[in-house]
């Protein structure tokens, strides 16, 4: 699409980000989850996957889904600077999504983590993949992180022992809601990486192929009785 002058002014300045190499994780159930960076052609399936969860207040799915919907749309329509989306898929079906963005040299800002397939630590694996991308591939030294649910707070702030800088830098606020931010530093990442982050590379071609075209889940444990298309 040709970008006219006005559209160019509407878009935030962007830098070319290093790609995130795909990996394969065997979940506890034995299912194989491909973790890969989302592409523009995935946007429809991603948005369609997130949308039904707007109706789930439990565990703050509604607010996370609403914000993530906006983030994916913003990414797709070039309205967020340097955003990336990573997706986990089991047999091509979307199991979880994470969003994040590169702020500037050395600094990243984590946006959201949405677990679709629950009970297998899919969200934990995808959050770790997001941090892996920030620090190991985008070469950032720090990632600012906040949580919007108690589960998120437990998983990220406590399990990663993130630095709480709210007292030291009370004016340093995360883009999400202006909450004082927590920070994952390179040092903290190196300390927890072996226990938190896994995945096999390269992904065998025949397995990677299953995640080439993403499929929306037909059902959600978060929405008992709900079925896509019904």
């Amino acid at each position: 699409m040709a970008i006219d002058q006005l559209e160019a002014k509407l878009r935030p300045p962007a830098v070319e980000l290093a790609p995130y190499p795909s990996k394969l994780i065997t979940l506890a159930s034995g299912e194989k989850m491909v973790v890969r960076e989302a592409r523009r052609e995935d946007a429809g399936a991603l948005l369609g996957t997130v949308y039904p969860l707007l109706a789930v207040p439990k565990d703050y799915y509604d607010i996370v889904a609403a914000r993530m919907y906006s983030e994916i749309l913003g990414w797709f329509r070039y309205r967020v600077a340097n955003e990336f989306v990573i997706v986990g898929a089991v047999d091509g079906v979307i199991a979880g999504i994470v969003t994040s963005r590169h702020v500037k040299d050395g600094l990243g800002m984590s946006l959201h983590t949405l677990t679709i397939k629950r009970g297998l630590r899919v969200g934990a694996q995808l959050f770790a993949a997001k941090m892996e991308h920030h620090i190991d591939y985008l070469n950032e030294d720090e990632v600012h992180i906040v949580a919007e649910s108690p589960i998120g707070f437990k998983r990220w702030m406590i399990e990663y022992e993130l630095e709480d800088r709210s007292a030291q830098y009370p004016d340093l606020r995360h883009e999400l809601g202006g909450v004082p931010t927590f920070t994952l530093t390179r040092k903290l990442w190196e300390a927890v990486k072996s226990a938190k982050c896994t995945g096999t590379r390269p992904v065998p071609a025949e397995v990677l192929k299953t995640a080439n075209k993403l499929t929306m889940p037909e059902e959600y444990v978060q929405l008992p009785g709900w079925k896509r298309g019904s």
Partner: protein
Amino acid sequence: MAPRIGIVGIGHCRFGNSSEYDLVDVIAYSANDAFLDAGGLQLRKEVDQVLVGNMAAGLFNHQTSVASALVSRMDMEPCPAELVENGPASGASAIRLGYMAIASGMADVVLVAAGEVMRTVSGWEATNIVATMAHTEAEYNMGLTLPGFAGMFTRLYMEKYGMTERDLALVAVKDHANGARNSYAHVQLPVTIEAIADGENANVVNNYVAEPLRMYSTCPISDGSAAVILVNMDSPKAKLFKNRPVRIAGIASATDTHCVHNRKDPLVLDAVRLSAEKAYKMAGVGPNDISLAELHDAFVIFELLNSEEVGFFERGKSFLGVRNGETEIGGRIPINTSGGLKAKGHPVGATGVSQVVELVRQLRGEAEEGRQVKDPKYGMAVNFGGFGNNVVTTILAKD
């Protein structure tokens, strides 16, 4: 001579997250389920005694007098009602006291309902609350939690008997396979040995909780309830219930030192062995007569240790039996056919009653397809209070 006492009604909810519900409603759900199973809600009026098993409603739910609340919620006044607290063995202790109430002649029909709603608090806070069962000065105040204790216990067992982390994972694989077929289980998800032990990603997928215990060596934090109706089988009231009773052939408890460090050998669970010996004697049976067992496995090491203390395996050999498939359904002695605490879940106060409900389902032949033990005669449940210091063993018989 003591009357014959049997179970004529069972009730159970699906374990999981019920934190949006009131504790008393959660317990009433299973109690009503038990009456429906026994022949109808009108049978509430035949109950002479209500006993409620619960460990820590005061801490988890800021609620006390749960037994009084339950009879009122179920429109069962003026039936006598008391709460029974024995840590995670509260449920089995309530059954035992129900048995004693009938044996004493003071009651013919007893409702035992038990439940816990733990997920009102974070996992850390729940672990802290459960840890209050440890010795205050010598253990709790030193920072010991049950996972920490069990981790040390597991390490000791590994060093002494040569068990590996993979052996622990094999127990989890077996329990999850059973739990995946149990409609009441919290975690209805089979796991594979490749994914949680052998594979390249296993170290992260099955992360350490309290080394050497990993996530799949540890029970989830669950909400839930279960209920049974006990009846004097020789009483005219027994005929009011539609189900043929499953008889309580033996029920016994024993205690051990509160401080684990006061035991001669921390790997020897005297209270389990002694309660089992008493229950065997009362039932007139031995380990070889037991068709299946529900053994308290808040941590999978307990399943192994308990199976040795009750005589299914020699000391230090239980994990070899697991390797050989002896504890699987269809094996020599199926253990934790429900999925155990590991997969079914462990709402602490409810667990003892839940174990007995599973035995009744099995002895009636009502377990789900793929989970039913073939033609069982006797079932055993071991419910662990504290760190093995207050244990109840129950043996049920299909007459």
